């Protein structure tokens, strides 16, 4: 069902020069603003006793880390790329579980008004619990930091996915349900031909919010309790307390932001590809 929408095809066939000028048009403001922001940052940190390094010093002090993201000296002494991969692995695991459980439960309560009314208050309470409040509970249950952090990801990401799926299922247009009724579609056919495609845009809305929350939660959880991971690395650099610490933290935080953006765009892109023909 993943097909290229007509509009996407038209976009591809548009003249190259026009495309290039469009790219330039959207890049120029970004480049200008970024330069100005970096300039202000550099100026603010010019004082010799500044605790916060300016951008130039950050790069100078972390140049080896940037150049060699995949070194592995054993234990938790790893390159930033590897640390990010560790975090991503945890997110992938917890987030996948959240997606599977969230979509299934969401579809179920979307179709079943009794369960919806019964579970709504529980969901409304649980979804407002901050991610880190789950960590002690998870540690208590699993007695180990790895499954505990994965659980935190799961429990953080599941709510928007679940709620959006339930809403999406309820929004299925009456017209399509009428078609299903008159054709007496089987449960399986109804699921794959009507329920899933008409709910996909809602589900991906939830998945997109979920991945953002998952990434927020993993960094925080790793700072508190984890072996490896980019959150761990930030805390580790802080605890090391040497002259490079601040620069390392800054570069890690920057990476966290970039990866978070990439994840958000990735889920958004997959969603737009799948639901492009709506």
């Amino acid at each position, binding site marked *: 069902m993943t097909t290229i929408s007509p509009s996407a095809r038209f976009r591809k066939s548009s003249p190259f020069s026009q495309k290039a000028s469009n790219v330039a048009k959207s890049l120029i403001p970004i480049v200008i603003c970024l330069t100005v922001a970096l300039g202000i940052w550099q100026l603010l940190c010019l004082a010799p006793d500044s605790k916060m390094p300016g951008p130039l010093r950050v790069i100078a002090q972390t140049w080896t880390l940037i150049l060699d993201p995949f070194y592995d000296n054993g234990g938790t002494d790893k390159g930033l790329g590897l640390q990010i991969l560790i975090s991503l692995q945890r997110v992938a695991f917890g987030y996948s579980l959240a997606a599977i459980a969230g979509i299934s439960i969401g579809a179920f309560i979307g179709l079943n008004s009794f369960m919806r009314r019964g579970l709504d208050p529980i969901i409304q309470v649980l979804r407002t619990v901050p991610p880190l409040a789950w960590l002690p509970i998870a540690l208590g249950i699993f007695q180990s930091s790895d499954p505990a952090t994965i659980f935190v990801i799961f429990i953080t990401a599941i709510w928007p996915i679940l709620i959006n799926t339930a809403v999406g299922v309820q929004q299925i247009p009456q*017209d399509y349900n*009428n078609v299903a*009724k*008159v054709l*007496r579609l089987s449960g399986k*056919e109804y699921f794959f031909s009507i329920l899933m*495609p008409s709910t996909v845009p809602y589900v991906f809305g939830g998945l997109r919010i979920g991945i953002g929350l998952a990434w927020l939660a993993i960094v925080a959880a790793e700072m508190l309790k984890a072996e490896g991971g980019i959150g761990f690395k930030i805390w580790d650099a802080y605890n090391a307390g040497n002259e490079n610490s601040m620069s390392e933290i800054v570069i890690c935080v920057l990476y966290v932001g970039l990866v978070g953006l990439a994840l958000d765009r990735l889920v958004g892109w997959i969603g737009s590809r799948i639901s492009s*023909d*709506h």
Partner: protein
Amino acid sequence: MQILSTPDSQSQLVETPSFLEIDGVSKIYSTPKGDNVVLDDISLTVNEGEFVCVIGHSGCGKSTLLDMVSGFREPTSGEVRLQGKRVTRPGPDRMVVFQNYSLLPWKTAYENVYLAVNSVYPEKSKAEKTEIVRTHLTMVGLDEAANKKPGQLSGGMKQRVSIARALAIYPQVLVLDEPFGALDAITKEELQEELLNIWRQHKVTVLMITHDIDEALFLADRIVMMTNGPAAKIGEIMKVPFDRPRNRTQLIEDPQYYTLRNQALDFLYGRFALTEGE
């Protein structure tokens, strides 16, 4: 002289077992402001293979009446029987062509029709089902657009797909609720002719709502004219005696055409007021 007044002449027909029977059907909607009697004790028998058009002013209950034949609504009293069997819910033996087409936007024209065929004839082989879908898309002149999604089709083409989908499952009764209301005059005439051709080939029984007297005279064997609501009844049933296949230009040269047309107009805009005042 072709007009039969409903209650008496219909009760004579009921004696012989009929194909489709609407038997003493009333519909009352309970609203906060009290009961709203929409249809009051309507009886109508339709023969197999007959083409019946229903005409009446907006809001008189035409859709409600046909929805009780297709099974989307239940009569408050009375019942609808198809071949002696009481209608209780929608089913593919009484297929509907919805006014807003109700095609699934994520499926191509071909896939929309295939979904219907596949769900009604699961025992047929894939080759057979494919053949049925192709034949019906050809019938409505949509060979070329078979792989387009509804978003890429014009209103007329969408309604063609909808008609192809309805007929591809070989229903006993075809229910159309103002199928051509949203189309331009030329497309409308084309589709009327296609519908007549298919109707002849399939020998299907048709119940169709329209606001257009010329459309009804061109298509129908009988025109059911409903009185104004609330508590609408069948005011008159007009037999349309023209030979088939009908030719539009010949038809409008026939003096009888104008006699019938004037009678229908008179009912809707003249005597109709009398019926209301009773």
